[in-house]
């Protein structure tokens, strides 16, 4: 039987505000343990949290970028549970009145645009970090991350494959980076997701029973987790079993999910309105002011790159949905670069080099202007395309300008007419039979002769000039 996979995501993104959500401690990754703490974020009794205005602003901004409705009257709620990474024994979150709701994000997958519903986006605080001791008896708690502001983005179960979910995560990451509310550093855990997966026989309307997977820290891990869970559920159904609603934990190292708790042990969080934080009232003018701060988003860039610059749909999507390429590309255009040529370099050789280095386009070491110079050298026939690739390789290693490199590497293409004529004559003299062969239909001697000229000139002759010169002599 064929099965359809249904996936929904809950993504937590740490906001890049200067301070934590309820106190003025620095929101900073990598500090010495427990040095960015105060009585509020370490959960001392009797303290009063106060909400960081910037957190509300950033969440609304994210909501607007994802086409959400903004809740006019919103509030925070207390979510109760015991776990040592949460010293208050409750997390301040939002329950029934999230700041943003009912939005959508368009993703571009397999050549088609698909709309993914955003159920809600709310604000909450992050928990601390636990390090488990080797003796198995103790854990060590670092509360620096306690109270770091998070937005939780919940999607509708609109994904039909792990790939769609993966593209969404990439798109979402780029939206958050574009609007500048989160650094989205996966390796620092500033973007994490929980994955809800269910399967159903193809054609069935009713959704299958879902399982939730926690602790997915990387996009690659997320895709692997979704594939694993899909296959696990299908195997159970194939054997005539039933899927249990449960929470599972993804173990990326082992590449498998393990049961965390079943529906019966589901947490009872006993949400209630947070008495320490006053409700939030967001006026229409505030929403409009925040809307003005949103820059051009990936989807808009995608369309503009096609309309304005004539890029193909595929090329436009690869640049527009990757913030660092989009920024680099647009700066090149501002410097007078030809969009087509710049796009080809970005998606061709530059991408290849970055991939080898496992880096993103923000790691390009040279200025956009330098790439424009390089493309101009090719356009002006000063260097061949092959030579330009060699120059580009060097540009990743040195901060010398393309022109200097071309000179140093002796790659300047020879377009001097009389000099080229000289070499062409030499080559013709060495191959006296070629005109006759050419006239007898062996037209491939043309290529051979051009090759000889290139060889003699050590690859520096301009082939576009050499070609007609030889043709003329052959046809004489």
């Amino acid at each position, binding site marked *: 039987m064929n099965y359809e996979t249904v996936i929904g995501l809950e993504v937590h993104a740490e906001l890049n505000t200067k301070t934590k959500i309820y106190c003025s*401690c620095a929101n900073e990754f990598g500090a010495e343990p427990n040095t960015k703490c105060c009585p509020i974020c370490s959960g001392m009794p009797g303290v009063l949290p106060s909400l960081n205005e910037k957190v509300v602003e950033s969440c609304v901004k994210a909501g607007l970028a994802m086409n959400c409705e903004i809740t006019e009257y919103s509030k925070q709620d207390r979510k109760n549970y015991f776990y040592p990474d949460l010293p208050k024994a409750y997390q301040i979150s939002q329950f029934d009145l999230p700041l943003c709701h009912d939005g959508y994000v368009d993703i571009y997958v397999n050549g088609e645009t698909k709309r993914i519903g955003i159920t809600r986006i709310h604000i909450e605080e992050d928990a601390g970090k636990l390090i488990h001791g080797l003796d198995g008896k103790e854990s060590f708690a670092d509360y620096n991350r306690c109270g770091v502001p998070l937005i939780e983005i919940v999607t509708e179960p609109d994904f039909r494959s792990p790939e769609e979910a993966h593209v969404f995560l990439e798109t979402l990451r780029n939206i958050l980076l574009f609007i500048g509310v989160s650094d989205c550093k996966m390796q620092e855990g500033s973007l994490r997701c929980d994955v809800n997966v269910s399967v159903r026989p193809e054609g069935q309307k009713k959704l299958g029973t879902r399982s939730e997977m926690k602790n997915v820290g990387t996009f690659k891990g997320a895709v692997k987790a979704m594939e694993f869970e899909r296959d696990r559920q299908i195997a159970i159904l194939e054997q005539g079993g039933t899927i249990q609603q449960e929470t599972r934990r993804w173990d990326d190292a082992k590449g498998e999910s393990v049961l965390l708790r079943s529906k019966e042990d589901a947490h009872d969080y006993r949400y209630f309105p947070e008495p320490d934080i*006053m409700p939030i009232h967001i006026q229409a003018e505030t929403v409009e002011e925040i809307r003005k701060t949103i820059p051009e988003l990936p989807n808009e860039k995608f369309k503009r790159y096609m309309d304005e610059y004539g890029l193909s749909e595929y090329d436009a999507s690869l640049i527009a949905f990757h913030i660092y390429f989009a920024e680099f590309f647009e700066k090149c255009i501002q410097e007078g670069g030809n969009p087509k040529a710049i796009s080809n370099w970005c998606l061709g050789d530059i991408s290849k080099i970055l991939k080898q280095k496992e880096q993103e386009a923000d790691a390009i070491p040279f200025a956009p202007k330098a790439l424009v110079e390089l493309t101009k050298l090719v356009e002006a026939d000063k260097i061949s395309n092959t030579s330009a690739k060699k120059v580009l390789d060097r540009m990743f290693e040195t901060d010398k300008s393309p022109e200097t490199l071309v000179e140093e590497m002796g790659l300047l293409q020879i377009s001097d007419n009389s000099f080229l004529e000289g070499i062409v004559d030499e080559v013709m003299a060495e191959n006296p039979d070629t005109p006759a062969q050419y006239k007898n239909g062996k037209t491939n001697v043309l290529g051979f002769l051009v090759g000889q000229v290139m060889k003699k000139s050590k690859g520096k002759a301009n082939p576009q000039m050499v070609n007609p010169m030889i043709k003329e002599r052959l046809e004489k």
Partner: protein
Amino acid sequence: MITKETVQYVADLARLSFDETSIEKFTKDMEQIIGFADKLGELDTEGVNPTAHSVPVYNVFREDEVKESFPRNEILKNAPEKDSEYFVVPKVVE
């Protein structure tokens, strides 16, 4: 109607443990408390918006400006168990 099971469940959620006599007493107490609160249900709240706070104050915000955190030894001072850098807690792995 509050049962002994309900009291036991609430106690478990709060990580509290009681003997049989206390549970029976708390069952009666809780029944009374809930009954008292239920009186509110007799009020006619037709057309009244739900409210989470009794005073109409909104948007009590703080500016996003960093202030010095506490010295680590001060933060760790009251912890029942600690080392020089961390709070030490019994190992819990979910």
